[in-house]
C-alpha cells in the first residue's frame, strides 16, 4: 500500500502540473483523444472546405431545387467521410503488410492480423454509414423521398414466434359442418399429407461420426488444393468454411471430452 508520505508528495507534485501552457502544447494536447476523427462533428457549419464545395457544385449543377446546394454539400461531405474512412483502412492494411514481411514469429503475426482486421472492421462501419448518408443525399437531391425502414423484429425471434404478453386467450374451435358434396367428402377421406421430417442431428458421441467429421474437416481446411483454388479466385470465401468447420471441431472436442469423462476406469483400484 502507498504510504501517507508518498501520497502527500504526489499531491504536492500534482499542484505543480497545470497542463500545457504554451500555445503549441495546448494545440498538441487538444488532439490527445483523437483516434481517427471519423466520428468528429463539425462545430462551424458556415465554413465549407474547398473540395466539398467543388464536388457539391458539380453534383447540384443540373438540379432546379432551391435546396439543391444544401443537399449537394451533404452529399459531398458524406463522400469526404467515405474517403477518410477508406484512407484509414488502407493505412492499417499497409501496416499489416509491413508487419507480415518484418515479423517471423507466426503466433505474433496471427495475433497482429486479428487486431488489424478488427480495426479495419470498425473503420469499415464508418465507411458504410457515410455511404448511406451519401445515398440519402442523392435521393433528396433528385426529389425522391427517402423510405423509412420496415420495423425490425427482435433479433433471434421470428415475427410469428415472438412471445407476446398481451395475447388474448384462444377461442374454442367451432364445430365444423358436415361435408356438403361428394368432392368434399373424398377430399376429407384422402390421407393426411405427411410433413417433411426434421433434419436428423449428428450424434457426436458416435465414434464413426467423429472419424468422418474430423476427416472432412481436415481435408477441407488443410488440403493445399483448396488453397490453390482459393488463391486463384475459384472459391469466393474460405472463411465461412473455416468458421463452420471450426465450430464442428469445437463440438468434436467437447464430445470427446465428455466421452472421456463418462468412461469408467479400466484399471481396478487396489483396495488391499
Amino acid at each position, binding site marked *: 500500500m502507498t504510504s501517507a508520505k508518498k501520497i502527500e508528495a504526489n499531491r504536492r507534485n500534482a499542484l505543480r502540473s497545470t497542463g500545457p501552457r504554451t500555445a503549441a502544447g495546448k494545440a498538441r494536447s487538444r488532439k490527445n483523444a483523437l483516434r481517427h476523427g471519423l466520428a468528429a462533428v463539425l462545430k462551424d457549419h458556415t465554413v465549407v472546405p474547398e473540395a466539398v464545395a467543388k*464536388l457539391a457544385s458539380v453534383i447540384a449543377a443540373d438540379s432546379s431545387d432551391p435546396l439543391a446546394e444544401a443537399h449537394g454539400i451533404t452529399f459531398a461531405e458524406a463522400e469526404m467521410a467515405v474517403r477518410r474512412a477508406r484512407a484509414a483502412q488502407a493505412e492499417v492494411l499497409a501496416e499489416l503488410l509491413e508487419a507480415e514481411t518484418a515479423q517471423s514469429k507466426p503466433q505474433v503475426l*496471427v495475433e497482429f*492480423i486479428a487486431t488489424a*482486421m478488427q480495426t479495419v472492421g470498425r473503420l469499415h462501419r464508418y465507411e458504410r454509414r457515410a455511404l448511406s448518408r451519401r445515398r440519402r443525399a442523392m435521393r433528396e437531391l433528385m426529389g425522391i423521398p*427517402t423510405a423509412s425502414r420496415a420495423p425490425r423484429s427482435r433479433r433471434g425471434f421470428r415475427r410469428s414466434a415472438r412471445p407476446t404478453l398481451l395475447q388474448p386467450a384462444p377461442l374454442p374451435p367451432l364445430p365444423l359442418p358436415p361435408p356438403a358434396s361428394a368432392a368434399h367428402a373424398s377430399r376429407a377421406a384422402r390421407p393426411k399429407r405427411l410433413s417433411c421430417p426434421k433434419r436428423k442431428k449428428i450424434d457426436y458421441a458416435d465414434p464413426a461420426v467423429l472419424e468422418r467429421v474430423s476427416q472432412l474437416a481436415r481435408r477441407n*481446411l488443410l488440403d493445399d488444393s483448396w488453397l490453390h483454388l482459393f488463391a486463384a479466385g475459384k472459391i469466393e470465401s474460405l472463411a465461412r468454411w473455416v468458421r463452420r468447420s471450426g465450430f464442428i471441431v469445437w463440438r468434436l472436442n467437447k464430445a470427446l471430452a465428455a466421452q472421456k469423462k463418462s468412461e469408467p476406469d479400466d484399471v481396478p483400484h487396489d483396495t488391499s
Partner: protein
Amino acid sequence: MTDPVVLPEMPDIPADVRELLGAPPVRSVAELKAYFGLLRAIAKQYSPRDINEWLLAADQTVSILRTNTLRQHEVNLLKLSEEVVQDERAGTKRRELLVAQLQADRAAGLPDQVPKVPEVPRTREPMDDTRGLVRCLPALEQIGRLSDGYRAQRMSVPRELLDYRKIIASLKAGDIRVDKPMIADKEKAVPDDEQIVDEEEVADTPSLVPSGRKP
C-alpha cells in the same frame, strides 16, 4: 527520396473526373496501378455519364481491391496456422531433448546447468491436428465478416446504378411517380425476418462438402 509514380495515360478517365474522385485509397504503387486499371475496366463496362456514376464505379473498384487484399491475408493466415503448429512441435521436441540431457548430466554426477541443445528445425508433416487453425479462427472470422461487407457493397453498385439511371430517365421524361420510389420498393421486398439463420442448425448439417466443390 522516392521517385514520383508515373501512371499511364488514361484518356477514358477525364482529368476533371480524376480530380473530383480524389486520391485513391491505396498505399503502394502496385495497388495504385491496380486501382486505375480496375477503374478503367469498370468504366468501360458501365460508361459513367456523370460524377455520381463515376463515384459508384470507384466504390466498386475499392470493394474489389479490398476483397482481393483480404483474400491474400486469408491465404497467409491458413499458411501461418500450419507454421504455428510446426513451431509448437519443434519447441516441444527441444524441451524433451533438454530434459533428457539434464537427466543424463545428473546421472553422471555433473552440476546442474542449462545444457546446450541446438534449435530443432521446423518439419513439414501432415497436419493431424487443428491447433493452429483454432488460433487463427478469430482473425479468420473477422476477415470473413469484412469480406461479406465488401462483397455486399460491390454487389449493390450495379443495382444502384440501374436505379439511378431509371430515375434520371423518368425525371427527364417527366413521368416519375414520387409516391412509389423504386429504390425504396426494392429494399422493402426482403423482410428482415427471412434473413435470420440459426447458426447451430447450419453447423449441424451432416455434409461439409457441397456437391461440385470438391477439390
